[in-house]
């Protein structure tokens, strides 16, 4: 055990702080106190994690860190596991949660949903952090349920019939996915007699039962990640949720299940992975990129457009599997995808917040009726445009670097066709982003009386500022490529679980 390592004793805090925050915000009765403690806990989380996560995967330390909860150690107990991949995701979660908490404090001010929003929000954060730290197959099942049920409840907070219907479908899909995952875990336990990721990574071999387990685990997680044929639930759920919830769903929640797929395919069950399977995932990803962009272009509502864009962007992530399967470039491919995850998280969160601001200010988000909206909502459209730059992958943004890395990997592994997909995806993304901007910046020459302006609620300047911060973050990521890659490199080798097994 590496428990004596610098910073490691604080590892459970990533889950414990959000859980405490959930309980505290449930017990508080004053709405103001609830939002202030919400922001407080988000700050605490960031400051508790950032300083030592920053250093943990340093050059002088082992590539991964384990923490034996309850002091038992795997396989009897449950371990936590931290490496570069997890570090990057934990840090981006903490940063995003802080900004979104501030946004939510304004968004839910004076609304009765706030009483349920904050506890559910913190439960969701606990689940996300838990998944990034997880090193136990069954533990992941419970965490997935936390994430799934909390997300469903948050979507339903919007209270409309559309939102509740979307939430119900999301819940059914989530339960179905969890059960498939659980059956896979049951098979793994039956076959290998352990639930610990490191031990599974050591024992795993290519035989029919492992293939079956991998297929079930992957199917369950793909349902939750919404890869193309299984994406049917995502657009309505993400589009009908309250703005900060849409942001966190697209930015982090779908990434959590993707993270697990990557873990299972690259680490835990890698001996059972076949080239055919990797190709299939990559192919589905490629189709998702193209189809998602087309669907986004045809969407009638702004938030629906942003949600379909998530379907497309998730497709890029799955290029990881064929690119990593080539063997030599595994690390490079992982680097590109992790970069992509962070860049997309920031840009998509900013975009959903901007769309939420427009929806709130105009009372609708019908794209056809948003003609000339830039005149009324210049800030939100500006944010939308900056985030769009990153989604399209124009320099100098995080999205550009991410796509650059993907292209590089595709070329150097000799799989140039994936590069074509990446380039086409960028072009198509430009189409739907510019469609919105073009419409919004059109000068409206109608007399002002004819422009429908049913202002339903004023947007607080703080909400605009939060969205702006995220959009700037998405662009700034393009200038700090070195930093992120170092963070990832230091801790991550794609086979950390099998390496860590001896400890």
């Amino acid at each position: 055990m590496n428990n004596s390592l610098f910073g490691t004793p604080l590892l459970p805090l990533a889950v414990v702080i959000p859980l405490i925050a959930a309980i505290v915000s449930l017990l508080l009765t004053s709405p103001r106190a609830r939002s202030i403690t919400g922001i407080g806990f988000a700050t605490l989380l960031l400051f508790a994690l950032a300083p030592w996560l920053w250093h943990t995967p340093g050059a002088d330390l082992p590539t991964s860190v384990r923490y034996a909860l309850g002091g038992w150690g795997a396989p009897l107990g449950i371990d936590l596991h931290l490496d570069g991949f997890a570090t990057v995701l934990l840090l981006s979660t903490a940063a995003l949660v802080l900004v979104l908490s501030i946004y939510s404090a304004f968004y839910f001010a004076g609304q009765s949903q706030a009483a349920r929003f904050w506890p559910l929000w913190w439960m969701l954060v606990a689940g996300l952090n838990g998944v990034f730290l997880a090193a136990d197959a069954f533990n992941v099942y419970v965490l997935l349920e936390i994430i799934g049920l909390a997300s469903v409840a948050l979507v339903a907070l919007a209270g409309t019939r559309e939102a509740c219907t979307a939430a119900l479908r999301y819940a059914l899909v989530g339960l179905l996915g969890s059960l498939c995952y659980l059956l896979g875990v049951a098979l793994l336990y039956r076959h290998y007699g352990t639930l610990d990721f490191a031990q599974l990574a050591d024992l795993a071999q290519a035989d029919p039962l492992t293939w079956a387990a991998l297929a079930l685990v992957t199917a369950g997680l793909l349902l939750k990640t919404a890869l193309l044929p299984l994406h049917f639930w995502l657009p309505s759920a993400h589009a009908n949720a309250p703005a900060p919830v849409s942001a966190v769903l697209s930015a982090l929640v779908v990434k959590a299940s993707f993270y697990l797929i990557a873990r299972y395919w690259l680490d835990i069950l890698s001996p059972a992975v076949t080239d055919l399977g990797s190709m299939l995932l990559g192919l589905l990803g490629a189709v998702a990129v193209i189809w998602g962009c087309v669907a986004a272009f045809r969407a009638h509502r702004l938030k629906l457009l942003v949600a379909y864009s998530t379907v497309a962007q998730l497709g890029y992530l799955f290029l990881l599997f064929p690119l990593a399967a080539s063997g030599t470039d595994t690390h490079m491919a992982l680097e590109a995808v992790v970069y992509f995850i962070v860049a997309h998280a920031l840009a998509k969160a900013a975009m959903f917040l901007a769309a939420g601001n427009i929806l709130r200010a105009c009372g609708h988000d019908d794209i056809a009726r948003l003609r000339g909206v830039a005149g009324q909502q210049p800030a939100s459209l500006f944010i939308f445009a900056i985030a769009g730059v990153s989604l399209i992958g124009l320099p100098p943004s995080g999205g550009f670097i991410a796509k650059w890395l993907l292209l590089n990997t595709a070329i150097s592994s000799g799989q140039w066709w994936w590069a074509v997909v990446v380039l086409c995806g960028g072009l198509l993304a430009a189409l739907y982003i510019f469609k919105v901007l073009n419409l919004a910046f059109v000068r409206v020459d109608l007399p002002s009386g004819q422009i429908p302006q049913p202002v339903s609620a004023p947007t607080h300047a703080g909400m605009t500022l939060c969205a702006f911060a995220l959009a700037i973050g998405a662009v700034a990521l393009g200038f700090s490529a070195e930093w992120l890659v170092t963070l990832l490199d230091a801790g991550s080798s794609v086979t950390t679980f099998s390496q860590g097994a001896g400890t």
Partner: protein
Amino acid sequence: MFREMSPSFTDTHASTLPRVARVLVASVITAGGAALLLATLRTDKAPPELAVLVSEQLATSGVENPVTAVLLNFRSYDTLLEIAVLLIVAIAMQPHASSQPRIVAPSTNNESATNLVLTSLLRWLIPLSVLVGGYLLWTGAYAPGGAFQAGAVLAAAGVALALTERYQFGWQSAGAQWLISAGLAIFIATGIVSGMVTGTFLQYPVTYAATLILVVEIAATVSIAAILLQLFTRLARADVTSPHTSGASS
């Protein structure tokens, strides 16, 4: 294939899927299931190494029932998160209004119809289920039983109480919030405090393990019972926000 998966509420047997799709789904599932069955039955089970490990360490866990030892000591992190799952659903199903009477305990509603048979049955049933619940909780350390079973039995007593329509539950009251969150709160507090002593979160000192587990179990039982009861009363509309009783309570 299942592009929509939109649930309907109408009481029909008919599936919304066209016949071709159903046959397709059925054959895909049959083929997949058969392959799975074959793969499972042709592969030997792993030797029960973990079971041996559990029985070796049972003496240091603080309890004698191995399942309780796994749930509340070896893999207590899972159980902690599981209580969080229950709490999430309880929060999601809470009535949103804050201007409600502050009551936790069942409050009598004299207006409602009374069923003599049910009421007299309850006189026996309620104390009995509290007794059974307490027994299950206590015996969980040595024999089958524990917090979840005890909580379920207690909740069943509450469900019986709700079914008489003589009692209502105010789930939005401050007291109810404490009740449903106590399990998770005390579990985490125990984990942190013991972690301060031993240096690892959720690691109980061997000498105090039995006591700590009992404390966690009692709190968990109360919360689980409250949450399960809340799930039922909210669905069956036996709580104070329901329209047919709100007139009587206000």
